[in-house]
């Protein structure tokens, strides 16, 4: 393996396993190469990572803070703990918080059975919510001829924003407001169907982890997301640099 200048090969320990990686790789990159599972939600390979959902938090020996594995670069001699009682509890709480935030009703959701949020909850054993639901009034934007944005299901992972800006280059999606009032918006908060920058490529729909963005004409459980294009496009982007 050849390395770029300034990039070093490091050895580190992840979940008691000795691993080797390049200093420009993240903990998550290396863990995946070794088949060590770290839960993620906002991250999607091919898009930039932002460390926002806090699912991939890990403990690193010598650091008093928990670090997001998706953006933390590996260092020589690092000792990383992926699964501890505390981390697992935090991940379950994070998922509970997400479920309590908006209106996630799987049984009537177009992505039921194919949803990243749902399958992560199943995998981490979140089978009931102890927190009160916030039940916000959230709108559905069906103005686009082919797609629907149902903000009830949005978890503000910003994958749609990133894929639109970084790969399609349209930057139709953005964020508005703050806290729980934050919303993903098209153009300057105009209905999606009236957006002048949207090319209608549908990448945002395919990368959306939940049923927030979907194709029209799908019944509950019918919306399958197709993300095969991402690795290829992100590779093209790297080559083009």
């Amino acid at each position: 393996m050849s390395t770029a200048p300034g990039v070093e090969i490091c050895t580190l320990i992840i979940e008691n396993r000795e691993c080797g990686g390049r200093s420009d790789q993240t903990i998550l990159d290396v863990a995946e190469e070794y088949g060590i599972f770290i839960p993620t939600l906002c991250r999607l390979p091919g898009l930039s990572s932002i460390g926002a959902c806090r699912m991939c938090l890990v403990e690193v020996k010598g650091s008093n803070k928990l670090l997001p594995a998706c953006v933390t670069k590996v260092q020589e001699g690092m000792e990383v703990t992926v699964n501890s009682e505390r981390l697992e509890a935090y991940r379950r709480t994070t998922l509970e918080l997400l479920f309590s935030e908006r209106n996630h009703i799987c049984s009537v959701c177009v992505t039921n059975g194919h949803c990243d949020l749902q399958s992560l909850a199943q995998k981490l054993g979140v089978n009931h919510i102890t927190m009160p639901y916030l039940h916000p009034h959230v709108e559905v934007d069906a103005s686009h001829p082919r797609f629907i944005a149902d903000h009830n299901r949005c978890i503000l992972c910003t994958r749609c924003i990133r894929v639109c800006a970084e790969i399609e280059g349209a930057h139709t999606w953005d964020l508005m407001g703050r806290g729980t009032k934050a919303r993903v918006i098209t153009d300057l908060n105009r209905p999606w169907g009236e957006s002048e920058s949207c090319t209608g490529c549908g990448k945002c729909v395919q990368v959306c982890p939940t049923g927030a963005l979907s194709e029209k004409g799908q019944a509950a459980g019918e919306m399958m997301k197709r993300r095969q294009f991402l690795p290829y496009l992100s590779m093209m982007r790297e080559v083009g640099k």
Partner: protein
Amino acid sequence: MNQDDLANIAVQTKQEESRYDHVIKVCVAAGCLSANSDQVKTQLESEVKQRGLESCCKVKGVGCMGLCAAGPLVAGEGNEKMFQNVTPADASAILDSIVDNKPAPENVVIDSHLDFFTGQKKIVLENSGEIDPERVEDYIAADGYEALFHCITKLKPLGVVEQVTKSGLRGRGGAGFPTGLKWTTVYKAGTGQKYVICNADEGDPGAFMDRSVLESDPHRVLEGMAIAGYAVGANKGFIYCRAEYPLAVKRLRTAIRQAESHGLLGNNIGETHFDFKIEIRLGAGAFVCGEETALIASIEGGRGTPRPRPPFPAQSGLWDCPTLINNVETFANIPPIIRRGGEWYSTIGTEKSKGTKVFALAGRVVNTGLIEVPMGITLREIIFKLGGGIPEGRRFKAVQSGGPSGGCVPEQYLDIPVDYDSLASVGSIMGSGGMIVMDETSCMVDVAKFFMDFCMSESCGKCVPCRVGTTQMHNILERISEGRATQNDLEQLKELTGMVKAASLCGLGQTAPNPTLTTLRYFMDEYKAHIEEGRCPAGICHPVKDKEEAEVGA
């Protein structure tokens, strides 16, 4: 301009002022201005004119004198005579008192030997209330820009960094990171483009230390930044100031213009090869932009949201360049440190917290306003000596330091020294300097709810624990205060405080649980009274049980 020109201006300005027998200082910082101190100043000026005293009496607008609650403040005879709550109608009596030494009406006189004034040690605020903040000559006469000239003509950049390291100064924004270490990191970060940023996005409720410094002595901050620029190798600085401080912004603009026209900022400062320019950027009302990575994103023109660190701004900050980012008060400490030496500064304060700290004293305390005290002073001294104790003979309950990121310190810890580590050991933080005193009429559940409401509204929404966690915690606190909560809610609140603290992305979320955590720790009996008995001991909240009784009674 070179060093001789600077000395000439200083001498001339001092001579001009010494021609007057009496200098009457009127506070024109935001607090007193909002109580019409500008009218007081105009009235005093016209009174002086009427009496034909122009040659011996000068009326001068100055910065904050500290006792803001008693404004407008006027001082004369070298602060021996001080007046409070002055109205334009009092101008004549004040002039009588200062010029003819007649006794002034009792309601406007303040004892200038109050502990509030004498108990302070002023370094950052040494010029506040003394110089005219809109005249660079006044600042130069008070040894201004001497430290900058000393650095650029006599010291190597590393020598400047060494002095700052030796001083033991720690960041005054709240977290207390060693300033010397930060400067060293940026100094060592290559030779390319670097930036200096001054964080003036002061947002804690009840805190106005930075505003006061900017309004009273803006050149001090510019000088501190220029010295920092020289030390770390940056030629460009930004001041990120919140737009809610229009007077501070106006005075900064004036100061920058004056400094540029005097050759104290710009190219070839002091006829050396050192260039340094400063620009102002205004915040758009987001508390989170006080967080350094969010602040940088905002200057870059993006949405003001934080990003995970590392990389720290010292390595990769503004436009991915190494960036030194310090708070207003930190920069304001730099000129005296250079002028008098890092060693001198390190003799003040405690072993691990050097120097002085400015606090905005507010709440249920007799003297509210701005104070600067040496580190290591006890909370008791601040509240009962300088602050004059609790009004109306009520009982002290707790003091909240550090704003929404800090905690409530109860009576049993009143004798701990005020320094970074001691405050942290009892669950609070030094913070940027807000200090809110509470007495028996304050409900601690209500206090916790207030700060959680603040954090919930100011959360940027990027990370899940802070966005949804603060909302859920706020809702639980609301249920407790309304008497609708169960024991289960309390357990959930405890769990969430730990989770949000550990899992949030930036300092806002990581410290948002602190007011709740400390009130849970020290005032559990109040939580229990709300939950189990439906009773608010302080009578602030109206829990359900109280309501029912009220209805029955009616």
